[in-house]
């Protein structure tokens, strides 16, 4: 085959049948998907249904995360189409199946950084990466910035494309011109599959990204902002990751106002990029955004038009083997928790009833790297306390956490006397985590211990690939 022949190879497919003939999908392969479209994703459904139709069995599903919209995979675990799952998080039916021991193999949970590492060091060998992209051209260049289903950064997909044996771009918009903004180069693309729709971009903001919180969220956000402002860190030219959801959005608004009033500017905002961070970029209170995942489709316009809004891949974001991972330059990180214990260990994956309800995301990576790690959480949710003597699942070890901010007060780890002094000097009351625990159980009483079997339902990896904790099948 000479170079002219290569150019003539048609990468564009309109039918999965033809596509699978070309790329050769077989039993036992590992295939991957990314979750940028979150609850709006329709790509995984179309691909897996087509795989099921041709009778391929024993597929390992390596997803950057799985949401409620992926409940249909339960049937595929039942008929053997899918045999293993590796992900950052699980929800809905799949979470229930894992905990009840119905999965053929324990689920492997990795943070985003850990997955980037696993892909690059060969622990996770992806045979075919199916990458949802909102636009592609006939050569196989792709992005998530153009087309009717544009959703922003393609940060997870980029790294998959670079490391998978084969890469299939799945899109609903084939550009007749070569794309101007190229997130995934044609060099990595084996095929472009055209589908009627890759999904509903409104689903990007669903679930934990809801903007409207309750009044308690506002109190937590105000406490977090106050803590950041008074913790002793010089905010001008510092780097911050704030996460998503109602609390984070409100923290962003507080900090934007504070920085604007004082003419200060964050060096960069990292991670999931919300509309509020984009507002901060436009207001000049943050110099740059490093966007591995856009939590608002409006980010598309910003990435395309603001040279300081950078799309980064997950390797750049948080791969611990990458000496220049952006997380390593973080000064302040605000993270969430389903539970936190009095040894500061944090759980973001399972709830206090043992159910799998969340995802690791970048939690471990960011907490390990940031100079100050703040956990923001209510003291209790409904009647269930968030602070425990011992969390059900250790996702992020306590050594990587510095501050807990709740709606009922702020606790700082004893070893961070610098922060305690700074906050106290500013008139902010600092508690011990044990004090908050006592406050918590004064409302909820001591929680009962949940019983599990000794059968492993999930393995939670640390960023370096070692086992951080196990999730066991419930009794």
């Amino acid at each position, binding site marked *: 085959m000479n170079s002219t022949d290569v150019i003539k190879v048609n990468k564009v497919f309109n039918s999965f049948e033809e596509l699978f003939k070309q790329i050769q999908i077989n039993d036992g392969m590992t295939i991957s998907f990314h979750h940028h479209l979150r609850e709006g994703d329709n790509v995984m459904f179309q691909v897996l249904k087509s795989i099921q139709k041709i009778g391929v069995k024993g597929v390992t599903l390596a997803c950057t995360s799985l949401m409620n919209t992926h409940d249909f995979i339960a049937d595929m675990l039942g008929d053997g189409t899918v045999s293993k799952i590796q992900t950052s998080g699980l929800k809905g039916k799949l979470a229930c199946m894992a905990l009840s021991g119905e999965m053929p193999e324990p689920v492997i949970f990795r943070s985003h950084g850990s997955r980037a590492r696993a892909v690059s060091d060969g622990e996770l060998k992806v045979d075919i990466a199916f990458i949802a992209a909102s636009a592609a051209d006939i050569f196989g260049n792709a992005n998530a910035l153009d087309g009717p289903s544009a959703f922003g950064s393609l940060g997870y997909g980029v790294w998959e494309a670079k490391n998978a044996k084969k890469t299939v771009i799945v899109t609903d918009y084939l550009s007749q011109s070569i794309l101007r903004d190229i997130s995934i180069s044609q060099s990595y693309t084996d095929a472009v599959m055209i589908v009627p729709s890759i999904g509903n971009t409104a689903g990007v903001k669903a679930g934990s990204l809801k903007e409207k919180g309750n*009044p308690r969220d*506002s109190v937590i956000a105000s406490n977090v902002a106050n803590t950041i*402002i008074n913790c002793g860190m010089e905010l001008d030219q510092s780097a911050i990751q704030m996460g998503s959801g109602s609390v984070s959005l409100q923290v962003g608004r507080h900090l934007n106002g*504070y920085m604007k009033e004082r003419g200060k500017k964050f060096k960069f905002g990292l991670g999931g990029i919300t509309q509020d961070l984009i507002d901060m970029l436009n207001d000049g209170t943050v110099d740059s955004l490093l966007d591995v995942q856009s939590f608002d489709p409006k980010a598309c316009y910003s990435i395309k038009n603001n040279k300081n809004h950078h799309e980064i891949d997950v390797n750049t974001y948080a791969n611990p083997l990458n000496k220049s991972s952006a997380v390593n330059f973080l000064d302040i990180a605000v993270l969430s928790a389903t539970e936190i214990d009095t040894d500061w260990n944090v759980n973001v994956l399972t709830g206090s009833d043992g159910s799998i309800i969340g995802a690791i995301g970048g939690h471990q990576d960011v907490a390990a790297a940031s100079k100050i790690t703040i956990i923001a959480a209510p003291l209790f949710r409904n009647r269930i306390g968030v602070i425990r003597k011992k969390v059900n699942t250790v996702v992020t070890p306590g050594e990587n956490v510095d501050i807990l901010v709740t*709606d009922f007060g702020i606790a700082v780890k004893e070893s961070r006397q610098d922060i305690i002094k700074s*906050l106290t000097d*500013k008139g902010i009351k600092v508690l011990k985590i044990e004090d908050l625990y006592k*406050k918590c159980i004064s*409302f909820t009483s001591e929680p009962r211990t949940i019983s599990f079997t000794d059968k492993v339902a999930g393995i939670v990896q640390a960023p370096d690939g070692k086992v951080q904790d196990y999730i066991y099948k419930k009794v």
Partner: protein
Amino acid sequence: MFWRSIMYVPGNTPSMIQSSMIYGADAIVLDLEDSVEENEKDSARNLVSYALKMLDFSGTDVFVRTNSVDSKHFLKDLAAVADTCIYGIRVPKVQKAEEIIYIDQSITKIEKELGLPAGKIKFMVSIESALGVLNIKEICLASQRLIGIAFGAEDFTYDMSIKRTKEGKELAFARSVLALTARACGKIAIDCVFSDTKDSEGLKKDCETAKSFGMTGKSVIHPGQVEAVNELFSPSVQEVDQARRVIEQYEKLGCPGVFSFEGNMVDLPVLKKYQRIYELYGRDKGE
């Protein structure tokens, strides 16, 4: 005793009661009246009583809004909460001085029965009718135990058969008389709630209007209103700074009865005003 924001909390909603102290309201009112259906009065009373005994309100002053004195619930409400951590009770729909005397006597009686210190339980009342407005002075003077008068605009406009507007022109006379009389009688004056919880600009204007009448604080119905009300009923940074400088000058001059500050005469009442502002707001609370 200075409350900028006094937040209503439904007495039949445990989740709201248990977090009611975190929003920064200067005082909260656990409500047994309008937010509780007639068939839930008993359970709400039990819930509020239990909450007052079990919860730590973290220094927030707590009132309980009882049902009105002409209802069958008033004495039961009072009895259920008297021996708790309450600062006082808030009695709605008061129209005449006789009701104040009745409330005072009822509290005095229960204090004796429970062995509580005389005068421990304070009370505020709400004026919510035309007759109530006309009788404010007599109401204010009827009891030493009465600490404040609040205005209830919804029932007032209903009583007057007038429409309540956001601008509140129809309330101007009543609010003005209430604030004026309360101040004259040494009571605090608490403005009515602003019902549109999503209209922050409207809330701001309403607070400014209330403040211009002489109201000392405002009732709020949503945690999201607390911060704005506190801010608007607090003195400005410049006012606090001026208070600090006046006090410094006063001390530097050896605490004279009258002195001059930046060309203006400062006598005892003026000094007291500045001392009060500085005491309440002059402490360093971080950025």
